[in-house]
């Protein structure tokens, strides 16, 4: 039994990403944190929007020029995806917290639904923005 500690030390530790088979529910879990962290940046952009609006017309025009630039639009598009994904997957988590939908088949199906909702809602939002002249 003297070699027990060394054998214990050699055991793989979780999360062991190199040997686990990548699965859709792994992606949803990781992306929930990634999009949540991205929305941290989005919330700070929202705060800067409010500060620039209160600062006056010149500051607001500068802010709109930054967000209206190609890079700004790319960031906004990514944030739209992050918002809709985090929203859909957040609802999925709330359903799990209620004790429902925890079996593998349902969890896989709702994972696909969350991705689909995020992509479709983002495209619809940007299509509406394009058609109504918001871009």
């Amino acid at each position, binding site marked *: 039994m003297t070699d027990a500690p060394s054998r214990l030390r050699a055991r793989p530790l979780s999360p062991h990403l190199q040997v686990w088979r990548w699965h859709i529910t792994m992606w949803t879990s990781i992306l929930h944190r990634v999009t949540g962290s991205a929305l941290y940046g989005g919330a700070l952009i929202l705060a800067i929007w*409010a500060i620039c609006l*209160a600062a006056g017309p010149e500051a607001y025009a500068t802010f709109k020029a930054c967000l209206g630039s190609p890079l700004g639009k790319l960031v906004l598009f990514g944030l739209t995806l992050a918002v809709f994904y985090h929203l859909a997957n957040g609802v999925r*988590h709330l359903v799990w917290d209620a004790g429902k939908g925890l079996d593998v088949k349902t969890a896989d199906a709702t994972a696909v639904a969350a991705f689909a909702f995020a992509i479709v809602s983002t495209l619809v939002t940007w299509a509406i923005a394009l058609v109504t002249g918001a871009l």
Partner: protein
Amino acid sequence: MTSYRTPMSRARGLGAAKHGVTHWIAERVSAVALVPLVLWAVYSAVNLARADYAGAVAWLQETPVNPVLLTLMIAIGFWHMHAGVRVIIEDYLHKPLTKVSVLLLNLFVCTLAGALAIFSILKVALGGA
């Protein structure tokens, strides 16, 4: 096995303080509130992208609904954001000094940015712009 309960706690025999689950529940309650608020915010953002400075000011001044919903979304959103990132920090940072520093930074950034945003919105909404 070491017991982490204090002698006073054992003598009282009351079990846990029953506060452990508060943060967990509050994060879920804020999530439920944010579902309609965020959908409204996306709709509003598309409308505001069309408007210039005067249009954005008018949006905050013409009805109490817009500034109130926006203030609520920012307050609840920054709270939820702080709670979520706090869990991430607690999961991945283990050195006590680093962990406490980043936890404090998270709290201060969320509080400061949220307060600045809400103050700015109220200033414009109440006619200060």
